[in-house]
């Protein structure tokens, strides 16, 4: 891991949760299993990938 995996997992989980709430508040998608569970899971995966890849910062 070149980046920060713990930060990526936690922030990815919370980002997915808030994104699901935002989609509901903006009347784009209701809080279904796909959004309320799926988006946080996708956020965790995204956090792991971003921290493993770490495309930002000094090389």
């Amino acid at each position, binding site marked *: 891991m070149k*980046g920060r995996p713990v930060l990526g997992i936690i922030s990815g989980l*919370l980002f997915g949760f808030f994104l699901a709430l935002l989609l509901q508040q903006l009347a784009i998608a209701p809080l279904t299993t796909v959004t*309320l569970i799926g*988006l946080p899971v996708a956020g965790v995966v995204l956090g792991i990938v971003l921290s493993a*890849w770490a495309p930002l910062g000094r090389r």
Partner: protein
Amino acid sequence: MVRHWKPLLFASAFLALMWIPAVAFASVTGGCTGSVVIDGTTYGPANDTPSNPIVVPIDKSGVSAAWEGSVPFANTNHHGNLGIVVGPWNIEIANWSGANQADTRSANGDYSVDDFKAEFPVAESLIPRGLYELSGTHEADGGSCTAHVMVKIEGSPLSNPIGIATVAGTVVTGLTLLGSAFRRRTS
């Protein structure tokens, strides 16, 4: 191009997740019918997608909803419930039951949107706006129906504290997620 496969893959996954709810809904099963007129617009079983919801103008006062419904089967000893879908759960907000010995198969009435607002234990400005999926069932001696519709409580998410906290939370956690993509310094 090969270098960019990861962001493209995950952008595609996010888009797919967001599109699934828009196409995965069915409406009424069992032959029951119903409609409601709110603020001059008639809604029915077709209002079951996020892009075509039943709109509740919560910021207006004095609005009433004229509703009617019927079942195609013997409606004695009936019971049913209505709930809000939250993730894998269905939170019950209403239920009904009765012997209905007269076998009444249709009903209608008026429901005040102001009464709906009064059901919330918070001030009107604090009622969460946005899109909700409602799911309900009705069973009787002659058969059963299931239904779900989309309901949009009209208003800007930035008009109440829950919406403001949601927008702020999305921005902060999004930036933090981006921070996890920075390389750690190696000495």
